[in-house]
């Protein structure tokens, strides 16, 4: 461990296991059958429904809600899974308030959209509880396809390929599949081991061989995969983390928010994690919110998010920002880190106020200090660029068919430039890449 932050107030057990368990309960508890019936009844079954248009995976939302209203939740789930095999996770993590629910005509009418996300969860939970996978692999095409990365994009791609009759090998660098669903999302969004259960559900179609602990560039290579398989899909996400590029960044109290979240998600007992009394999170996206809120829920006393631009520029949705503030997280805008400080008992981060200048963001020269026992960096992730495919601004370049610059190699999810870092978009791209691969192999 790098020197620094010794003596900082960082310890486990700030809250009891019971308190932590209560804090990490389901953010949106599941709807009961009656609640679902009432919520479903609010849907107008719109013509050419705007919610469906707003969904990156194009789920026939009006239809699945009608199926719930008609007491046919399994049929509703099938409608969802036909478009989005990770419909269960998307029901939990989609920023519905900026997608389907924002487009809902009842949002326009009364500011209270149909609860599409919770209804989707009701239906998908219902079918998944049956334990029977609703799809069969297609008649074998004799083709083998390598899918690299078992996150949302890779899972969606692998499932669709299996559905089409291809034999899929699904590689992942981590010991467990699931990608960000398993390692990168706040625990209260997916409690009860849901991410793991969902991977089992997706793989339940059969014809998908999972190989974990296989990292691209270390254990496997694109060239090798191209040799061994008929097509390759890269859904490798963003493995790297951006650096603050300020003095003191390498001090031991400075951690990656992504790492912190992954550690928490992997922990048997979260209350046993060492948590700082005062936590500063630097960044403005979902990861910053997830890290900050979870620190608070684990017993941190003061948690502050500092973001270099204004509120309107934050990548975290308004709902997420509200959630953070409700949980007691302070959000400070228009400030950038200047240096991480560790001088005796004075530990923390010195920030400089910023403003939007003619040449972009500029410092005002005025600084302030935020004391911290832990500093979490959440200023974005970067592609750990694989050998081969062309990249642009740190992301793999793909065409409308999700083909990379390499023949026989497709890509989707966070690692491509066309994405928006949403689970649902990754699923759509994985699925669409599978369709493209299928077209290419059966043409």
């Amino acid at each position, binding site marked *: 461990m790098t020197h620094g932050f010794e003596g900082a107030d960082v310890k486990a057990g700030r809250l009891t296991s019971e308190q932590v368990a209560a804090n990490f309960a389901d953010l949106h508890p599941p709807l009961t059958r009656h609640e679902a*019936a009432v919520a479903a*009844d609010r849907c*107008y*079954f*719109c*013509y050419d429904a705007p919610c469906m248009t707003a969904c990156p995976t194009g789920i026939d939302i009006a239809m699945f809600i009608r199926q719930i209203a008609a007491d046919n939740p399994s049929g509703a789930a099938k409608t969802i899974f036909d478009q989005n095999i990770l419909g269960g996770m998307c029901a939990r993590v989609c920023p519905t308030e900026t997608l389907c629910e924002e487009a809902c*005509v009842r949002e*326009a009418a009364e500011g209270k959209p149909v609860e599409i996300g919770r209804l989707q969860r009701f239906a998908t939970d219902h079918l998944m509880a049956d334990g029977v996978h609703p799809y069969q692999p297609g008649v074998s095409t004799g083709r083998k396809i390598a899918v690299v990365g078992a996150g949302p994009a890779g899972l969606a791609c692998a499932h669709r390929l299996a559905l089409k009759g291809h034999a899929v090998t699904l590689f992942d660098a981590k010991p467990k599949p699931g990608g960000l669903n398993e390692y990168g999302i706040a625990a209260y969004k997916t409690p009860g081991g849901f991410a793991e259960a969902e991977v089992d559900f997706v793989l339940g179609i059969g014809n998908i061989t999972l190989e974990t602990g296989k990292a691209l560039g270390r254990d496997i290579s694109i060239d090798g995969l191209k040799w061994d398989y008929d097509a390759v899909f890269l859904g490798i996400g963003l493995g790297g983390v951006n650096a603050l590029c300020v003095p003191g960044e390498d001090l031991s109290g400075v951690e990656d928010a992504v790492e912190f979240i992954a550690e928490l998600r992997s922990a048997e007992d979260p209350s046993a994690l060492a948590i700082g009394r005062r936590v500063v999170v630097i960044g403005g996206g979902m990861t910053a919110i997830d890290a900050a809120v979870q620190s608070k829920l684990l017993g941190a006393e003061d948690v502050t998010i500092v973001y270099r631009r204004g509120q309107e520029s934050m990548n975290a949705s308004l709902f997420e920002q509200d959630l953070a503030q409700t949980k007691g997280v302070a959000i400070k805008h228009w400030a950038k880190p200047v240096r991480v400080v560790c001088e005796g008992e004075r530990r923390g981060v010195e920030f400089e106020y910023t403003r939007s200048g003619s040449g972009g963001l500029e410092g005002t020269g005025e600084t302030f200090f935020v004391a911290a026992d832990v500093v979490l960096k959440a200023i974005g992730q970067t592609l750990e660029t694989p050998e081969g495919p062309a990249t642009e601004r740190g992301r793999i370049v793909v065409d409308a068919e999700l083909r990379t610059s390499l023949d026989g190699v497709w890509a989707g999810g966070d690692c491509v430039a066309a994405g928006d870092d949403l689970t649902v978009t990754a699923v759509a791209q994985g699925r669409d890449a599978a369709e493209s691969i299928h077209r290419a192999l059966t043409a």
Partner: protein
Amino acid sequence: MADLRSDFVGIKSPNPFWLASAPPTDKEYNVVRAFEAGWGGVVWKTLGLDPHIVNVNGPRYGAVWGADRRLLGLNNIELITDRPLQTNLDEIKAVKRAWPDRAVVVSLMVPCEEVCWTEILKQVEDTGADGVELNFGCPHGMSERGMGSAVGQVPEYIEMVTRWCKQNTRMPVIVKLTPNITDIRYPARAAKKGGADAVSLINTVSSITSVNLDLMAPEPTIDGKGSHGGYCGPAVKPIALNMVAEIARDAEMAGLPISGIGGVTTWRDAAEFMALGAGNVQVCTAAMTYGFRIVTEMIDGLSRWMDGKGYARTSDFTGLATPNVTDWQYLNLNYVAKARIDQDLCIKCGRCHIVCEDTSHQAITATKDGARHFEVIDAECVACNLCVNVCPVEGCITMEQMPAGTVDPRTGRTVPAEYGNWTQHPNNPSSVAAE
């Protein structure tokens, strides 16, 4: 404040809201609670001969629900009172004595033998009750024994029994009619011929509310079997309104008082029945859904509406809508309207478009200049009103009359100023020239 006092065939009550003969009026306990809550009167649950009948010991009710499990229709297979006759008579007497200002009418159902009716009428008279209602309506159970709707479906029986009753009592006689017939005017006319002081309608509609697909049996299911019940509640109100209107506008029955029954749930329902000619209303399902306190809303709502309209007493508006109920052939075919969609209110759900496109006249757009936009195409619109009915936003789509002299783009014809109906239309083989 409007005067809600009611005088129905000489029976006075502080308001026109009576509880219908049904489970809520089976016992003194219930009726006293109803009067404490403010109900103007009750029709006591139907009395029969001893030995008293028995009811099933399984479920008696089935239901049809709308959104949020709102009860839209109730179906029952409960028979008439299952308590000894004398018990009921004693309680009726006690209640009437304790509540002299409230209407207490007693419903009766005994076999079609004159002696049965004359004897029970005497016993009811002794209680001091205000009148009797002859139950010729219940479609379930008792009809299998030649009573209830089995009588109500045969006008000759209605006339016969009504006459017996009129000849054997000084009390007003109200005849309660079954809707399970083809034309309500025939039984109603029979009641009038028999001397009835009034008719009350509707009784319940023969029905099976649902089928249990696991048991493969109708609901409510008793030991694997079900029997048709009598349907009531908001779902039957349109049927009841029509039947009330049919009687109210029938020349042969002019002046025959009507007690309106069938899905009355709010003051507005009551006002509608009364506007069509009912002198008062009777309520059951609403009370069985929400309890007796709903009468507070009914009294207040009706009173405020009457104040707003300047009606001092209920008779001021009773029957005002009756003359406007007519036969289709007399509707003005020269009245031309077009649907109009208020774009400021439109929430762009597109339901108007898809129903018009799929099931009607292709008269509503889905897009305009490439954007989602719903607008009526006057050249196709026949003013059917379907879009108004399916629009979730009240007042967003309206039907606007085209002024006389303007050209209807659908037909190319100038809208005439004068009235013209089917009897005068050139396409009618038996039309007569307009005068």
